[in-house]
């Protein structure tokens, strides 16, 4: 290729589509750094700023308020040029239902920002946006998020919402949470000296407490260490002899969704009744008003998982073979796009969950739904192995420069006397370090873009009008779904969720005598319905990557014209006009 020709190609492609800039970050109207985490006021500010900057794409609405009065926001990304949001298949993307699982929110924000920047510049994403709608909810649990940022926590705490809850059943709520004894803002660990201890400080690095083997020595005696774990950082605030047993909140909003909701004794954290929290209630009401949702992702942390339901063994049979194939084909692509992530089934590969969000959406609403557990410790060594405790220490020392640990400090504890307090802080695990956050956001966004790109897209493969003699004609309609997700999942059609798809043929001067599906696309017969032949209910929809054929017998005079229309809840309706040929 000579230089002039190359230059001319480059010039042309630059002028037509700026894909040549793919090595550079896309220019955008809002500058957001993706190597840091955002508290909820910042999340609101970024969301509002994006909505203001892309008014033709992004709309922000408040759908309710949290237990503590924070606004719950949903952003709709839709290009009105290709129709109103309700006319297109939609993907719901949320994050942070567990307050401590913070990077879920940045991942949602990143996805919005990236799509807005890409629209009109990146053909693949422009096409995706033109065909679909995205509903983004950056944080389902802003109270839990705010508590995580602003109060003493560790990587695992502040999972709950912030309604006071009497965890220890003593008649008082939230009266014995953790206490920041060393003033580092995190809930660390406590160790006390104990001649019958279970641990010993590591000789090479005394920051590490090594567990002593409980195997008897050759002489039959048991070895003891000189330190024992004294629990998480705190005191017995309510004088009941227990420490940190009734902290802020005390429930799990991801056990509160309807469908397979079960009470507290079966599913801890469930709440008194399904949808008893303002957050879950507002979201469920909103989702039920948007039957165009055809895909859903709910980001969590951590562990590097692409999770699908069921959440409980007894619901295994509720995922049919063909629905499982759809799930697997999407999840397997994700496992490739997300290094160290695995495709998993919640009850089998993680633990039993009743009342989980994706379980409700998948099983009660018939929507193909995943939960990604963001971040895997395998990304630390990038070797596919989890780091050992010494490797973790080196990671914290050499890459994070000690910023995620607090040195052990001796303090006087009211119950235990002298104890050491410190250890890893709330930034130390489950979330990526800031320098790895953007990659985490991008890869997961790309996976949800792939997932959204599988929402049903139908077209008429062919519409043929053939004479049957006299004024009678046969109209044969082949409808293809070019994407993986069926227009009606097996779950939806077998449980009669929502409305069936509908294929109609109408026109002045055209009388539909009979109509129905063809059992074989290339066959010669069809199965006529008994009533209403000009509007066929298609309960099973059009499966993914498939074509289905239908046939009408009509009586019409030559030259009459009509319209074939195929519509449904979870795809953009299509129509095509037909004309009865003039007589030869």
């Amino acid at each position, binding site marked *: 290729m000579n230089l002039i020709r190359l230059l001319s190609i480059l010039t042309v492609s630059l002028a037509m589509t700026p894909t040549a800039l793919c090595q550079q970050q896309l220019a955008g109207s809002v500058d957001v750094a993706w190597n840091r985490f955002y508290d909820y006021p910042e999340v609101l500010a970024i969301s509002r700023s994006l909505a203001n900057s892309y008014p033709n794409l992004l709309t922000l609405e408040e759908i309710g308020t949290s237990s503590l009065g924070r606004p719950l926001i949903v952003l709709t990304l839709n290009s009105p040029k290709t129709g109103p949001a309700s006319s297109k298949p939609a993907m719901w993307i949320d994050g942070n239902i567990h307050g401590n699982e913070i990077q879920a929110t940045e991942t949602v924000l990143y996805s919005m920002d990236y799509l807005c920047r890409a629209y009109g510049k990146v053909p693949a994403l422009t096409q995706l946006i033109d065909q679909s709608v995205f509903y983004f909810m950056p944080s389902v649990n802003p109270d839990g998020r705010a508590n995580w940022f602003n109060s003493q926590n560790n990587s695992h705490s502040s999972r709950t919402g912030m309604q006071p809850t009497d965890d220890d059943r*003593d008649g008082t709520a939230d009266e014995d949470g953790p206490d920041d004894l060393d003033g580092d803002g995190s809930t660390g660990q406590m160790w006390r000296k104990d001649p019958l201890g279970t641990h010993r400080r590591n000789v090479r690095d005394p920051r590490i407490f090594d567990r002593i083997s409980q195997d008897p020595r050759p002489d039959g005696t048991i070895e003891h260490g000189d330190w024992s774990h004294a629990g998480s950082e705190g005191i017995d605030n309510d004088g009941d*002899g227990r420490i940190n047993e009734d902290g802020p909140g005390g429930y799990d909003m991801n056990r509160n969704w*309807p469908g397979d909701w*079960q009470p507290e004794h079966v599913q801890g954290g469930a709440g008194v*009744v399904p*949808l008893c929290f303002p957050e879950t209630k507002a979201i469920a009401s909103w989702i039920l008003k948007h039957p165009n949702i055809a895909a859903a992702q709910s980001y969590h942390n951590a562990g590097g998982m692409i999770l699908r339901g069921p959440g409980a063994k*007894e619901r295994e049979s509720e995922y049919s073979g063909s629905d499982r194939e759809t799930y697997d084909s999407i999840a397997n692509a994700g496992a490739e796009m997300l290094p160290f992530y695995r495709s998993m089934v919640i009850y089998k590969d993680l633990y039993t969950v009743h009342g989980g969000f994706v379980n409700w959406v998948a099983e009660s609403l018939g929507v193909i739904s995943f939960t990604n557990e963001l971040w895997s410790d395998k990304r630390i060594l990038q070797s596919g192995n989890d780091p050992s405790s010494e490797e973790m220490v080196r990671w914290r020392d050499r890459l994070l420069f000690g910023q995620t640990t607090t040195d052990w400090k001796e303090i006087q504890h009211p119950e235990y006397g002298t104890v050491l307090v410190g250890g890893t802080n709330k930034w130390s695990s489950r979330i990526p370090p800031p320098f790895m956050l953007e990659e985490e956001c991008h890869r997961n966004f790309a996976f949800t873009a792939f997932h959204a790109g599988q929402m049903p897209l139908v077209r008429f493969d062919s519409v043929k009008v053939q004479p049957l003699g006299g004024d009678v004609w046969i109209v044969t309609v082949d409808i293809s779904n070019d994407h993986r997700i069926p227009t009606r999942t097996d779950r939806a059609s077998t449980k009669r969720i929502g409305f069936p798809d509908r294929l109609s043929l109408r026109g002045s001067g055209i009388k539909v005598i009979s109509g129905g599906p063809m059992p074989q696309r290339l066959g010669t017969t069809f199965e006529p319905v008994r009533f*209403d032949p000009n509007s066929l209910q298609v309960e099973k929809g059009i499966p993914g990557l498939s074509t289905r054929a239908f046939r009408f017998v009509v009586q019409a005079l030559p030259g009459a014209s009509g319209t074939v229309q195929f519509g449904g809840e979870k795809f953009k309706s299509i129509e095509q006009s037909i004309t009865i040929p003039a007589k030869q």
Partner: protein
Amino acid sequence: MMLTILAIVTALSVATSGDQPTESSITPKEAMIRAHALAASDSGRVAIVTIGKSWSGHLIEAIVLSDKVSDAANHPAFLLVSGLDGMRPSSVSIAVNAAKRLLDTPEILKDNTFYVIPCANPDVYFAPRSKSSASGNRNHRPFDEDRDGRVDEDPPVDLDGDGVITQMRRINPPANDPPTHLPDPTDVRLMRTADATKNQRPTHTIYTEGIDADSDGFVAEDDIGGVDIDRNFPHRWPEFDPSAGSYQLSEPESQAISTFVLEHPRIVASLVIGRWDNLVKTPDSQAKDVTGRTPLALDSGDLAIWSEMGRKWRDLSGGARAVDVDPSGSLALWLYAHRGIPTFATQSWGRPDASPAPPLAEPVAPVTADATTPVSPVAQPAEKLEDEEATGWLAWSDRDQAGKGFIEWKSFKHPTLGDVEIGGFRPGFRSDPPLAEVAKLDDAVAGFISELARRQPRVVLRNVTSRESAPGIYEIEAEIVNTGWFPTATAMGKINQQSDPVVVRLSLPKDRIQSGQRVTIVDGLAGAGGQKSFRWLVQASPSESIVLETTWKPMGTIRASITGDRVSEAKVVNP
């Protein structure tokens, strides 16, 4: 086979608006007017509070009764819920009358509160339906049963103009509508499914009385409404059942009732009058739900309570029969299985015994010329009765109710089906008690909830002692006892941790308690004398006042003061 007949019978029973079934007495509307009159005439002891609205905007009200109603929130409370079932309109007046009877027994109102929700499901009684809609328990939320995009467009219609919706049967239907039933050999008025093992051949198709208003080939398949609120509660919620709602507690009625219960934590027992019974027939106490961790209806640990209270109800009501009904998603199941509240359920009334069949004509010469005895339709059945309930009701209707319970099949020319017959049991005949029975049921219900109050758990703090065992060291002992009949927590309430524990506290700081806990949570005390003893060794000065408190939320807090070795009398203090 009994089940199959039962299914038809049940289908037949689902019909018409609630006010119609019997000549009974007081309509739900009149009953609620009476409730307001009670409150107006005795405002010191009765109040009416609005707890919510039905789908179509009717108020859902609770009658609050206590000897000083302004203080009602401070007493153990008993809940009566009624008016759930459109086929039992008299249950509204029964609840209101039971409330009135409670007012006549002042001693039962002392230190107790009763919440009576007489009409939990007003849509089924009050809202104007299409002339004769058939939704037994369903509120008026528009619902597209046949999923054709049109809502409530093909309801049942009273084609024969007799004022009620019954059934249609068509003999020898065409091939596209194959027959499913045949007349029961024991009485050809009853329809049953065919038993192939007996070489029976179906001859009829059965429909709800109506037309195919939307021309889709189905008759009366998209009725007005809605969600059956007594299938919308969380325990064993029958998801995807067309009348169960889109999620648990999706309906304003079930929301209102569940919120009321959650906001009144002093409710210690309840009675629900509706479609389900757990008093005449004690439920299976072994079977568990799909999780294996919640009983279907009753935990074995609570069986003794049900056996005794069932006996009590049968004594009070005289009821000996109840119809088997699937209680999935019912209010009563939720109250018990998820809230731990001992909750009794009654259909209020069951099938009475029919008078004996008149004897067949003896093969002897008649005494007089005109004394021939008519042959009863059910006398001398050709085979064993398959469905005792249906034939029993028919016999009672024929012999004791002048036949008014069953509308005889009559020919009718149907616009699309052609020749059919319309007839069947009169809606409500087999569920709503006749006038003569209602007064007895008013007494039975009042008696039963009074009995709940009499048998309530009563936590007592007793035998509090303090002894100086060394200078500045005191040994304090005490015991808590439940002197009531009910346990403070049902077995179910212990499993689900929703029954309030008994909390015992000593006011001393923890570092001065050498043995024993400063705060002890007792899951529950058994009924009739269940007790727990406590012993503390504490450091205190002889003049220091130590407070020992026992709290059981429905009852309040009992407090005793200890100074040195002196102990004050334990007293109940309410918040």
